C-alpha cells in the first residue's frame, strides 16, 4: 500500500495534536514543529507528484447499506493541488515565523495552521463526497480559529463568525446535494460516480438541481455572490492567514471541488450557465468594489474574489482546465501579494491604509520588487503567469459574447485597481511618519517572497505550465482574445497609473463601490426583518396555539371535570352510604348477571 498520501494528510494533524497536548508553552518549538510537519507533507507531495495514479480506502463507519469511507484518490488534479497547497503552505508557514514573532498566541496560531493544512489536504485527497464534506467542514472550523486569532479585539471574532455562518449556509446546500446524489446513484465515490452519473437516466431537471446544490458548497467556500461577504472581513485575521486562506487553500477548495465533480455539471447546460453567471457577477462586483478600497488587504481580498469569480466562470464555460490553470498561477502570485502586503504592514506597525504609505521603493526593496512582480502577474501583464491563465479563460469564452465582454471588463478593472494600489502604496512620497521610518522585513519573511515570485514570473509559460497541468488547447482565434486581453490590461494599468500618480488622496469617490454595494447593510436589514417576522410568528403560535389550546386547554379540562364532579360531594353521610351501597349492588349485578 502506498503510504505517502496518508503521511501527507496526517503530518499536519500530528503536529496540531502535539502542539495542543505538549508544546503549548514552548512557542518557538511549536512553530518549528508546525513548519516541519508541512515540510514533510511537501516532500511527500513532490514524491506523489512524480508517482502513480491510485486510490485506496478503508471503512470508517459501517452501517449496513451506508458506509463512510476514508480514502484517497490520486490523479492529475490531486497532484497539482497537493503541490500548490503544500508548497504555498510551506512558504506561508516559514513566513509566519517572522510575522508572528512577537505574538503571544503563537502556539495556538501554529496549531491552527496545522489543523487548517490537515483539513485542506483532506479535501484534496478525498475520494468520496462524505469524506470531502467532513474535511470541508473542518476547513470552515479551522479558518474560524485562524480568522479569530486575535480574539481580544472586537472585529476578528465578528469576522470569524461571519465567515463561519456564510460557509455553513453554503455547506447546507452542499450537504443536500450530496444526499441527492447519493439517493439517486447509491454511491458517493467520485470514481464510481464519474462513470455512471450521466448514464443513470435521470431527468434533466433533477441533474440540474443536484449540480446546483453541490455548487452551493462552492459558493460558500469560494465566496461567490451572494455569499461573498465573508471574505473581505476575513482580513481581520493575521496576514499570513489571509494569504493561506485566499491564495492556495480555502477559497480554492470551492473551485477544486467544482473541477473534481465536473461530471455532475457536464450533462446540465442550465447548471453550467448558472455557474458561469454567478462567477461573472461575483467577478465584476468584486472588481468594482476593489477600485474604492483604502485598506491594502481589502483591495487584495476583493481581487481574490474577482479572480475566483473568473475561475468559477471558467468552469461554467465548460473549461475546468482553464479554471485550474488560473487557480495554479493565482495561488503563487496571490500568496506573494498577501505576504508582500504583510511585509509592508509589519514594517509600518500594523498600518493598513494605503494613503498612509508611499515611497517604499528605497526602504523595502525586496518587498517592492516582489510586490511589483505579483501585481504584474495579477493584472495579466505578459509574460507573467497571470497573463497566460487569464488569456485561457478569455479564449474559452469566445463563443459567448456577453461572458467575453464581462471577462474583458474584469481584466481592465483588475489592471486599474492594482496599479492604483501599487502607485499609491509604493510610489511617490511617504505620506506618514510610519512610512518614513519603514524598513525591510527580516529574511525569514523576504525569502518566501523571493521564492514565490519565481512561479509568479514563469509559471504561465505553456512549456513550464504543461509540466504541472494539462494546458487547455483552444481552437478559434487565440490571437483575438490575446489582443483584447492586452488592450484591457494596458488601458487599465495606464488609467490607474495616471489617475493616482503623485496624489495625496483619492481623486475619485464613488460611495456605492466604497460601501461594497451596501451588501452588508442589505443583509443586515434582511436578517433583522426575517428575524422579526419569525419572532412574531412564533410568538403568536406560542401565545395562542401552545399556551391557548395545549397548556390552558389541558388545565381547563381538568379544572372543569373537577368542577362538575364536586357537586357529587353533597356532605350528607347517608347519601354517601347510599351511593356506596348502590355501587356494590351494581357491581354484584354485573358480576353475577352481566356476562350472560
Amino acid at each position, binding site marked *: 500500500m502506498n503510504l505517502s498520501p496518508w503521511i501527507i494528510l496526517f503530518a499536519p494533524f500530528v503536529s496540531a495534536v502535539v502542539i495542543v497536548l505538549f508544546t503549548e508553552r514552548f512557542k518557538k518549538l511549536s512553530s518549528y514543529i508546525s513548519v516541519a510537519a508541512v515540510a514533510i507533507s511537501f516532500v511527500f507531495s513532490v514524491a506523489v507528484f512524480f508517482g502513480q495514479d491510485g486510490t485506496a480506502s478503508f471503512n470508517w463507519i459501517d452501517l449496513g447499506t451506508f458506509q463512510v469511507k476514508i480514502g484517497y484518490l490520486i490523479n492529475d488534479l490531486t497532484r497539482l493541488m497537493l503541490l500548490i497547497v503544500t508548497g504555498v503552505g510551506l512558504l506561508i508557514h516559514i513566513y509566519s515565523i517572522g510575522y508572528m514573532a512577537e505574538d503571544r498566541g503563537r502556539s495556538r496560531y501554529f496549531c491552527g495552521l496545522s489543523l487548517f493544512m490537515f483539513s485542506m489536504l483532506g479535501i484534496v485527497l478525498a475520494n468520496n463526497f462524505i469524506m470531502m464534506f467532513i474535511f470541508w467542514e473542518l476547513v470552515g472550523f479551522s479558518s474560524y480559529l485562524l480568522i479569530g486569532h486575535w480574539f481580544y479585539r472586537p472585529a476578528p471574532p465578528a469576522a470569524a463568525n461571519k465567515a463561519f455562518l456564510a460557509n455553513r449556509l453554503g455547506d447546507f446546500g452542499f450537504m443536500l446535494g450530496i444526499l441527492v446524489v447519493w439517493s439517486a446513484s447509491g454511491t458517493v465515490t467520485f470514481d464510481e460516480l464519474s462513470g455512471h452519473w450521466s448514464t443513470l437516466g435521470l431527468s434533466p431537471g433533477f441533474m440540474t438541481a443536484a449540480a446546483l446544490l453541490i455548487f452551493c458548497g462552492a459558493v460558500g467556500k469560494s465566496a461567490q455572490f451572494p455569499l461573498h461577504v465573508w471574505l473581505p472581513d476575513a482580513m481581520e485575521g493575521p496576514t499570513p492567514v489571509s494569504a493561506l486562506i485566499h491564495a492556495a487553500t480555502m477559497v480554492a477548495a470551492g473551485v477544486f471541488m467544482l473541477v473534481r465533480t465536473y461530471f455532475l455539471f457536464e450533462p446540465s447546460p442550465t447548471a453550467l450557465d448558472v455557474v458561469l453567471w454567478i462567477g461573472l457577477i461575483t467577478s465584476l462586483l468584486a472588481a468594482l468594489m476593489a477600485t474604492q478600497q483604502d485598506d491594502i488587504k481589502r483591495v487584495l481580498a476583493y481581487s481574490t474574489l474577482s479572480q475566483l469569480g473568473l475561475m468559477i466562470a471558467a468552469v461554467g464555460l465548460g473549461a475546468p482546465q482553464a479554471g485550474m490553470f488560473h487557480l495554479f498561477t493565482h495561488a503563487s502570485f496571490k500568496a506573494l501579494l498577501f505576504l508582500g502586503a504583510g511585509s509592508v504592514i509589519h514594517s509600518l506597525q500594523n498600518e493598513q491604509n494605503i494613503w498612509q504609505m508611499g515611497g517604499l521603493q528605497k526602504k523595502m526593496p525586496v518587498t517592492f520588487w516582489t510586490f511589483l512582480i505579483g501585481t504584474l502577474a495579477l493584472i495579466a501583464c505578459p509574460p507573467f503567469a497571470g497573463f497566460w491563465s487569464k488569456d485561457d479563460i478569455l479564449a474559452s469564452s469566445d463563443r459567448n459574447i456577453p461572458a467575453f465582454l464581462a471577462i474583458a471588463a474584469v481584466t481592465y478593472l483588475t489592471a486599474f485597481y492594482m496599479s492604483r494600489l501599487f502607485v499609491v502604496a509604493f510610489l511617490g512620497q511617504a505620506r506618514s511618519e510610519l512610512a518614513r521610518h519603514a524598513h525591510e522585513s527580516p529574511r525569514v519573511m523576504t525569502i518566501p517572497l523571493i521564492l514565490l515570485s519565481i512561479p509568479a514570473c514563469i509559471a504561465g509559460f505553456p512549456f513550464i505550465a504543461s509540466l504541472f497541468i494539462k494546458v487547455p488547447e483552444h481552437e478559434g482565434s487565440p490571437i483575438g482574445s490575446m489582443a483584447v486581453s492586452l488592450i484591457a490590461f494596458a488601458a487599465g494599468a495606464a488609467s490607474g497609473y495616471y489617475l493616482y500618480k503623485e496624489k495625496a488622496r483619492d481623486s475619485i469617490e464613488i460611495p456605492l463601490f466604497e460601501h461594497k454595494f451596501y451588501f452588508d447593510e442589505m443583509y443586515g436589514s434582511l436578517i433583522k426583518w426575517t428575524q422579526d417576522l419569525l419572532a412574531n410568528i412564533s410568538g403568536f403560535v406560542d401565545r395562542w396555539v401552545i399556551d391557548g389550546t395545549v397548556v390552558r386547554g389541558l388545565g381547563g379540562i381538568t379544572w372543569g371535570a373537577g368542577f362538575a364532579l*364536586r357537586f357529587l*360531594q353533597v*356532605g350528607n*353521610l*347517608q347519601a354517601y*352510604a347510599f351511593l356506596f351501597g348502590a355501587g356494590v349492588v351494581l357491581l354484584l349485578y354485573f358480576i353475577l348477571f352481566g356476562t350472560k
Partner: protein
Amino acid sequence: MVTLNDYLFASGLLFAIGFAGVLLRRNVIIIFMALELMLNAANLSLIGFSRYNAHDGLPDYNGQVLVFFIITVAAAEVTVGLAIIVALFRARQTTHVEDMNTLKF
C-alpha cells in the same frame, strides 16, 4: 328441617335491616348499631356455611375462625367509633348526621 337457605335468608334479612338502618336513621349511635347488625349478619352466614360444609362429620372451622376475627375487628371498631362519636358530640353537641355535613364542596 332447617337448611342452609334458611340461614342465608335470615342473614340477608339482618343485613338488609342493618343497611336500611344505616341509610334511614338520623342518630349516629343508631347508625352505628345498625352497622354492627350488618357485621353480625355476615357472621351468621359464615356460621351457616361452616355448619353445612361438613367433612367427615366435622364442620368447616375456617368459617368459624373468620367469625372470631370479625368479632375482634368489630370490638376494635366500636372502641374507635364510639370515641369518634364522643369527640364529635363534644365538638358539635349533637349526634344527628344531618348536622355533620361539612365534608362537601
